[in-house]
């Protein structure tokens, strides 16, 4: 049984898809034979939906009812109107229409309608944008999808096609309106993304614009000459880009379309003719153009744009690798077909990976390959389908579907037995006739290393034998493993946890944790919540950051258990099982289960604010400005000139973003997008700066505490604890120097745990805790119980009963509330 894997590249200008069957990688074609479909949707007056080239034709004729470039608005709630039919659609719905027509093409060509696929998204897409993409796929009828970053897909496809793999690659992806540069590292068959950079406002259409300007200038020039020759004194023709006039708009549009055609023409020819006769009149004169342009002239127009893209690559390289270490560049996207780009990338960056790669479909090809590595085939449980052999021994198998290791492990477990019983198995590779030994089952399990043929699909037959060594039928009869590249699980960029009422943080996931991941921890409420509107609430704040103190972290949302959703009171100390779940794309789900009332509370959290929504952008800009001005004040205070000038640079970025927000208010959606991106990148920089500052501040605050810990360990620690302290102190110091908050926190915690252990061993340790708690007993939720515990504690101390005292201290702690200030600093957390 062959598996098929479908990959979809949902592009801003063009979309495409590819199918991989374990051996062969095929680009899917439309009924007209094209491997691309324009990402354009038109709705006719009768409400019929057209996509691809059938819609693209109408961009010119009926722009009001034809939409392109809606990918730029993914993740926003923007309604796009189609006045002729009276319909309106979201960017997600339009994307769904494109995916749907790609699926039609697959069905046409291969006779299967896939229900699973890998869909690519730009590396810089954030959560809402990725979620919207997933939603579009679901609308188009895909039941299960995986999202994959476009540069990873490109690299996978390039790696599959390349004979020998180099270590470090740059993916240079210049699309219709965006530029993405990604640095990847390849080692031991594993692909790792090192870093990304890019410009969301640099792409093919900027080349079109420059050429259009050149054409307009040429028209005006020609017109002027004609007038001079004929000694006319008529009005001079002048086509204005930002003119509100309908004819000007139309002329600009037509000229820009002609410019794009010419640009594409010049990728393969030295010279191209631009001719345009249209029924628009500009200032009373018909638009009538016939000009020739040669490649050299065009390239001199483009040079600044090419420079901009290469400068971004250089910045990425400078920040992430030693000079001259880049091995290869993979070119992706339509504009990378231009000779000037191929030449300059090769001479200024690094050699271009083999010329046979198709820059237009590479992303889709890589997505299809990725399907094989995650086992996301278009078919459902295949074994269940084979009706014959129902009464044979059945195994469940575990093995990678794609492996970079030439000797992956296959594990099998016998789950249905039948006579004659299988006692040993053997695997034979159909690709290279390699055959394993006969392996006996142990506790119904076998495990064996198999041998793969390089860079291809390997189909193995599974043979079973009974105790006499005679063959017996087994299920499944075959299994397949593709030899290729594997990519590492994407790592979490910032630690995530839950803030506690005592100011601490329960870390659920550490930075670097491979996604997807899910964890559950049990916590307890610190207040009583009564049923009803005024019954109060338990707040469970979810925070992100590298510190174990909530006030140093950033709140990203909360789960709230409200009184009005309860039928019964939840007393203080109620157990709450909190589950956080993060998927591969970084989308976070939170859940709280209260077992005592058997009720589940769900929460949706927003990791990042994005999109061109005016209010969120304004709010985000306001808070960033505040944070930036705090940093600025600090820098002034400490007279740090370098920082002051850095922040002034950021401030001007801030101002630009604010201008863009103002233009958004005036209806300029693109400006809104631009503001969203610049704010996100500013937020990242400010985050980083704050983290460093907080670390410095924390190091100072910690000094005394560490001194105390060391004292206690010196006096009461074991030899091993003392040597652990030495190690931890060393690492702590390194972490402080390297400005690594993660490592610092870990080591600080080691020291404090060692200190606490030693302190508790000291003769008066628990008595000290007891006295501290006893002094605050009036704050106890249950005063009567508290006073009794204090009394019991005093007696235990008299008898020097340390065990009993310890128990009492724990009970007292549970009775005492966290102090108000701490609680406020931990985002009003209602749990401990």
């Amino acid at each position, binding site marked *: 049984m062959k598996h098929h894997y479908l990959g979809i590249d949902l592009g801003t200008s063009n979309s495409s898809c590819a199918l991989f069957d374990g051996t062969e990688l095929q680009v899917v074609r439309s009924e007209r034979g094209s491997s691309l479909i324009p990402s354009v949707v038109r709705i006719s007056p009768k409400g019929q939906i057209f996509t691809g080239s059938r819609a693209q034709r109408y961009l010119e004729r009926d722009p009001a009812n034809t939409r392109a470039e809606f990918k730029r608005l993914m993740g926003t709630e923007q309604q796009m109107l189609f006045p002729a039919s009276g319909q309106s659609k979201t960017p997600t719905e339009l994307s769904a229409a494109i995916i749907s027509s790609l699926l039609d093409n697959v069905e046409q060509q291969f006779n299967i309608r896939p229900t699973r696929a890998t869909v690519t998204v730009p590396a810089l897409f954030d959560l809402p944008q990725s979620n919207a993409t997933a939603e579009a796929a679901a609308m188009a009828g895909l039941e299960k999808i995986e999202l994959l970053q476009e540069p990873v897909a490109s690299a996978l496809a390039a790696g599959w096609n390349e004979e020998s793999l180099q270590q470090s690659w740059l993916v240079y992806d210049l699309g219709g309106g965006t530029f993405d540069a990604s640095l990847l590292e390849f080692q031991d068959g594993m692909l790792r993304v090192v870093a990304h950079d890019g410009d969301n406002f640099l792409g093919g259409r900027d080349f079109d614009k420059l050429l259009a300007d050149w054409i307009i200038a040429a028209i005006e020039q020609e017109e002027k000459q004609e007038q001079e020759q004929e000694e006319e004194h008529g009005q001079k023709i002048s086509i204005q880009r930002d003119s509100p006039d309908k004819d000007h708009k139309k002329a600009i549009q037509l000229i820009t379309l002609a410019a794009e055609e010419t640009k594409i023409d010049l990728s393969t020819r030295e010279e191209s003719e631009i001719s345009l006769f249209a029924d628009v009149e500009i200032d009373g004169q018909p638009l009538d153009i016939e000009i020739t342009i040669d490649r050299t002239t065009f390239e001199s127009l483009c040079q600044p744009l090419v420079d901009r893209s290469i400068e971004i690559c250089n910045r990425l390289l400078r920040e992430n690798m030693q000079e001259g270490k880049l091995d290869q560049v993979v070119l992706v996207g339509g504009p990378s077909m231009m000779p000037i780009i191929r030449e300059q990338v090769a001479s200024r960056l690094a050699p271009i990976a083999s010329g046979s790669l198709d820059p237009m479909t590479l992303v889709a090809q890589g997505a299809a390959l990725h399907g094989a590595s995650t086992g996301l085939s278009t078919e459902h449980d295949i074994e269940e389908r084979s009706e014959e052999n129902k009464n044979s021994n059945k195994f469940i198998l575990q*093995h990678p579907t794609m492996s970079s290791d030439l000797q992956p492990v296959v594990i099998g477990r016998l789950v249905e037995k039948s006579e004659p019983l299988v006692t040993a198995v053997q695997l034979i590779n159909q690709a290279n006739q390699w055959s394993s030994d006969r392996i006996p089952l142990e506790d119904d399990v076998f495990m064996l290393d198999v041998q793969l043929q390089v860079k291809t699909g390997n189909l193995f037959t599974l043979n079973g034998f009974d105790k006499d060594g005679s063959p017996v039928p087994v299920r499944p009869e075959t299994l397949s493993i593709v030899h290729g590249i594997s990519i590492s699980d994407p790592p979490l960029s910032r630690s995530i946890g839950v803030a506690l009422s005592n100011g601490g943080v329960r870390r659920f996931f550490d930075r670097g944790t491979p996604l997807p991941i899910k964890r559950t921890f049990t916590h307890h409420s610190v207040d009583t919540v009564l049923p009803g509107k005024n019954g109060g609430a338990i707040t469970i704040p979810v925070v992100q950051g590298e510190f174990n103190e909530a006030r140093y972290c950033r709140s990203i949302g909360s789960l709230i258990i409200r009184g009005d959703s309860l039928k019964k009171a939840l007393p203080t100390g109620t157990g709450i099982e909190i589950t956080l779940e993060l998927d591969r794309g970084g989308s976070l789900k939170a859940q709280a289960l209260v077992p005592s009332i058997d009720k589940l509370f769900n929460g949706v959290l927003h990791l990042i604010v994005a999109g061109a929504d005016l209010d969120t952008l304004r709010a985000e800009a306001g808070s960033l400005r505040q944070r930036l001005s705090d940093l600025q004040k600090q820098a002034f205070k400490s007279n740090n000139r370098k920082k002051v000038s850095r922040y002034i640079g950021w401030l001007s970025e801030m101002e630009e973003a604010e201008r863009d927000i103002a233009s958004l208010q005036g209806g300029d959606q693109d400006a809104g997008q631009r503001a969203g991106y610049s704010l996100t990148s500013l937020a990242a920089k400010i985050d980083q700066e704050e983290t460093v500052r907080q670390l410095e501040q924390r190091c100072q605050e910690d000094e005394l505490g560490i001194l105390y810990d060391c004292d206690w360990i010196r006096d009461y620690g074991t030899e091993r604890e003392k040597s652990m302290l030495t190690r931890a102190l060393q690492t702590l110091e390194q972490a402080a120097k390297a400005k690594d908050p993660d490592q610092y926190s870990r080591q600080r915690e080691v020291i404090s745990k060692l200190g606490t252990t030693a302190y508790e061993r000291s003769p008066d340790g628990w008595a000290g805790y007891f006295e501290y708690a006893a002094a605050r007993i009036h704050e106890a939720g249950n005063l009567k119980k508290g006073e009794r515990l204090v009394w019991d504690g005093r007696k235990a101390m008299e008898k020097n009963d340390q065990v009993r005292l310890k128990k009492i201290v724990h009970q007292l702690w549970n009775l005492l509330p966290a102090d108000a200030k701490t609680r406020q600093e931990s985002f009003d957390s209602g749990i401990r």
Partner: protein
Amino acid sequence: MKVADLFLRNPLYILELSANATAREIERQAGKILGMMELEVHNSTRYPTPWGSQPRDAADVRLARAELRDPVRFHFHSFWFLEAEYPQAPSRN
């Protein structure tokens, strides 16, 4: 994190590897353990340490693999890894 976790939850123990494991061994071993867990093979959810056996789940294994893939983190963990006190060879090879 508890102090003891530096020892007990050391990724090298979780993957039943030694401090001189190669990149390839890390991948294979993690893949193997994840496969065994998926098939609910007896004992695949526990691993031996010098202080007795400890529980692990698939997330622990994937995290351990990610930690050990990073050369700097690998170095850190091998530093806390006490090979001499290892009671016996890893149970399954």
